[in-house]
């Protein structure tokens, strides 16, 4: 019951935020100096063609009417035509989103698993050389932009060592598995195209790790500090006194509550993954939505820009609801339905 109310509240809030975001990005896209239609077609396009684009984007109507028409179409899944690819933006996004999701999810898994693992190891062996290595490494990870990691990886593993493919999702000689989800690794596993899975994984490693390292370092730092705080608590001493095996204490009583701050920050770190995907996809020529978005931005393709940002906002909101649910599951003290304190 409580969970239902909580979910409903979050859902309503999400709809409100998405509407607000659409108004915000719509205003941003329309305050652009100059005529978007003329800009899209170039200075040599005939006036009638420019006029047609203007009408198709409702640019001849007042701003609130433009927004109304845009919203009406968007709710039907129609984001207009991309002024660069000359196709429906919705079609473009359908094609490019799976690649981004595959990259970001792969990266997210690396980030969470290794971040927590490194943090736990660091706390377990605190003040030994292992701890110091992890701490210094995670500091370096936090302060290094993912595009710098990407460029360095490309240099080392792609150009110098030649052990990993440097661009794209899959090698040109490898047959793609039939599209089910659009995620090559998952589709390949379902349909038994294991060569494709292996090849896709190889392509994923460099961009995935470059994206993950920042968030992973942050997760490691937070897990370490919350675990070492909890280690000093009385209840751990009480459990030790009762003779509960150390392994059980670590896994059952120490790790679970210590993960609450880590998971809470996962939502933000996931947002950082989405944001940095814009740069990393560009570097690795990854045919995803972020690269599509950034190319749209560089060429002032308004319909594409608005749609890409809305989809990003949607993904981010879904992830945050999931994170809230996981935190509630981990922490019985957090009363579902109550306002979050932060």
């Amino acid at each position, binding site marked *: 019951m409580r969970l239902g109310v909580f979910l409903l509240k979050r859902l309503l*809030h999400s709809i*409100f*935020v*998405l509407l*607000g*975001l659409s108004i*915000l*990005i719509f205003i*941003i*896209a329309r*305050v*652009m*100096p100059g005529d978007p239609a003329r800009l899209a077609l170039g200075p040599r396009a005939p006036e009638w063609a420019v006029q047609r684009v203007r009408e198709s984007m409702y640019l001849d109507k007042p701003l609130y009417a433009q927004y109304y028409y845009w919203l009406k179409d968007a709710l039907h899944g129609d984001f207009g035509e991309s002024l660069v690819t000359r196709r429906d933006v919705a079609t473009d996004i359908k094609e490019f989103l799976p690649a981004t999701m595959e990259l970001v999810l792969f990266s997210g898994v690396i980030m969470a698993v290794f971040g927590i693992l490194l943090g736990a190891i660091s706390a377990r062996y605190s003040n030994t050389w292992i701890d110091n290595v992890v701490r210094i490494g995670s*500091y*370096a990870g*936090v*302060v*290094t*932009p993912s*595009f*710098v990691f990407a*460029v*360095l990886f*490309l*240099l080392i593993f792609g*150009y*110098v060592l030649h052990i990993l493919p440097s661009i794209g999702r899959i090698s040109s000689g490898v047959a793609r598995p039939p599209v089910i989800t659009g995620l090559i690794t998952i589709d390949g596993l379902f349909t038994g195209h294991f060569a494709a899975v292996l090849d896709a994984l190889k392509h994923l490693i460099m961009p995935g790790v470059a994206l993950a390292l920042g968030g992973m370092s942050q997760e490691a730092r937070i897990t370490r500090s919350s675990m070492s705080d909890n280690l000093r608590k009385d209840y751990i001493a009480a459990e030790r006194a009762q003779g509960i095996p150390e392994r059980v204490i670590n896994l059952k009583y120490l790790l679970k509550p210590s993960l609450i701050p880590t998971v809470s920050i996962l939502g933000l770190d996931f*947002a*950082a993954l*989405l*944001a*940095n995907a*814009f*740069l990393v996809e*560009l*570097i690795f020529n990854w045919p995803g939505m972020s690269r599509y*978005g*950034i190319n749209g*931005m*560089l060429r*002032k393709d*308004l319909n594409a*820009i608005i749609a890409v*940002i809305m989809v*990003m*906002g949607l993904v*981010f*909101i879904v992830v945050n609801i999931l994170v809230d649910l996981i935190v509630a599951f981990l922490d019985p003290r957090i009363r579902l339905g109550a306002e979050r*304190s*932060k």
Partner: protein
Amino acid sequence: MERSAHATFWSRKLEGFGRGWYKFSRNPLSIIGLIAVLLVSFLATFAPFVAPYPKHAGVFVNFAEASQPPSLRHLFGTDVVGRDILSRIFFGFRFSLMLGVVVLTLVVPPGVILGLTAGYFKGTWIDTVIMRITDIFVAVPPLILALAICSVLSPNIFHAMIAVSLMWWPWYTRLVYGLSSSLRNEFFVQAAEVTGASRLHILFKEILPNCLSPIFTKMSLDMGWVILIGASLSFVGLGVQPPKPGLGTMVADGRIYMPDQWWITVFPAFAIMLVVLGFNLLGDGLRDLFAVEEV
């Protein structure tokens, strides 16, 4: 009489500062951060005097010395048109610091005032309006919206500053909101209310001074993040425009000459890491010093 009171006031301040410095300097990492920040600030401010080839910061071509690997003459090598990378990095620091300072100057006052107000009026419509608006702004990572704003305006460093500022204020609003909404229940605030102090007095003289340490700590950490976002914008071509030497621009420019001319890309990349690391270590030191938990 008045003069001696004045003197005690300052000697107390000085003593407090001395104690704070002692605590701060206990942690070698904080000192490293401070040194990095001071070094970068110095190099940026005096770039025309300390850079070995100040002319190389702009349009400059010398094909006789193009694409040279690091040497004593050019410590970090030269780019494809013969410009000294080290000199360009010094000037690149200028753009980075300028971006950070301008953005924070634009962002902190409105963000803090909105947070103070929303927190003090928690539960009223003022709170609802302000905080729901911040919800919208934080629904998408700041980098993505900053990219979008930069792209619809013509890309240059000035627009990059505006774009990042537009995206950054909600984080200060959120921080101060949390502090302000708990401080308003403290006795000293209630005492001021009972004695009939004005709202302005309560917000700025009673509540704000108690929020300053977290705000300053966040500013120090944010300098690093804002600079990083600026470098990212420049990297995709939406920030500092060539031939001006943005650190992100330089990393991007060198990419096509990898791996043979790795120095064009690698040294500016390290420069970005140095700046961000410096402000982060400094911020962490301040966080420990002020015992701030919220940031």
